[in-house]
């Protein structure tokens, strides 16, 4: 029972964190447009994107339940591994200083400037620029959440719990956005992305190996071992890359 609880907690946590970090980015886009061009059109864009994403979950969720669990875990594991390693790789590059940290305040300023200079065109009674920017922003950020929710939920047979974790994050980020009335630049976005990358890769490794026919020692408890191993590996890689970067900077300063 305990091992089932562990994977369930990690499943909800993964869906919650992934959803939170994507929704913070979507919120920045919607706020950037809304404060300059008014709220009606961007909010209708948000609503339309939310309906499209909900329809995708409603259509794909039950469809995946007819796929045999072994095949599903192999495919989902492979996709999560490829997807999760991208997140982890970017998080390590950011933490080691090799790429710039994502800055919500800077992104908000950029979206606001673009919204102010964009031409005004009305279609179907809407400010078309504000509508499409909000729609595309929420749809594209939301697609990653839908992908994670469906893959996490279907491979473990707990789609409802994964969706609940993601929905909780959407509500929390929206409430925070309404209260703050600005971009959530204090959210430790890069740390959360690191954690999500670690969880996606660990779940992908666990389900991918199971789908390929391997049996993990300790069954679902070994998921914690995979997270520990990949966490330690990431920590070491950040330290090595940071030292390497500082070495290059020091030799450049001497030259």
């Amino acid at each position, binding site marked *: 029972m305990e091992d089932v609880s562990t994977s369930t907690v990690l499943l909800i946590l993964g869906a919650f964190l992934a959803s939170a970090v994507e929704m913070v980015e979507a919120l920045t886009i919607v706020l950037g447009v809304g404060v300059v061009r008014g709220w009606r059109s961007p909010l209708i864009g948000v609503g339309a994107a939310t309906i499209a994403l909900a329809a995708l979950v409603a259509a794909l969720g039950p469809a995946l339940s007819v796929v045999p669990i072994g095949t599903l875990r*192999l495919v989902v*594991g*492979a*996709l999560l*591994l*490829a*997807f999760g*390693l*991208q997140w*982890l*790789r*970017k998080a*390590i*590059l*950011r933490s080691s200083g*090799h*790429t*710039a940290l*994502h800055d919500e305040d800077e992104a908000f300023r950029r979206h606001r400037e673009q919204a102010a200079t964009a031409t005004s065109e009305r279609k179907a009674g809407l400010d078309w620029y504000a509508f499409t920017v909000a729609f595309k922003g929420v749809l594209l950020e939301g*697609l*990653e959440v839908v*992908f994670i929710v469906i893959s996490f939920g279907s491979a473990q047979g707990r789609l409802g719990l994964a969706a609940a974790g993601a929905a909780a994050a959407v509500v929390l980020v929206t409430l925070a956005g309404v209260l703050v009335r600005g971009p959530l630049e204090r959210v430790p976005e890069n740390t959360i992305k690191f954690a999500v990358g670690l969880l996606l*890769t660990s779940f992908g*490794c666990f389900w*991918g*190996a199971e*789908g*390929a*026919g*391997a*049996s*993990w*020692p300790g069954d679902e408890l*070994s998921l914690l071992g*995979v997270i520990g*191993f*990949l966490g330690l*590996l*990431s920590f070491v*890689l950040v330290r090595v*890359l940071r030292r*390497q*970067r500082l070495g290059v900077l020091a030799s450049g300063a001497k030259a």
Partner: protein
Amino acid sequence: MKYLRSFARFWWDFIVGDDWRVAAGLALALGLTSLLTHNGVNAWWLLPLAIAFLLAGSLWRATRAPGERAG
């Protein structure tokens, strides 16, 4: 044709991303795990090892290539 290309590009970026070698290495590692397992070797250890090598290799290439994109 333009939309088809954009659609394919979106999914390529979504799944494969900046380094196709990682995705190819993962496919190979999963195939090897399946092969070994179906020949009586419980190869649960192969995938974590493959991830370690692929991640380290990808980061090594990225930090040597100028202009690594921020995402």
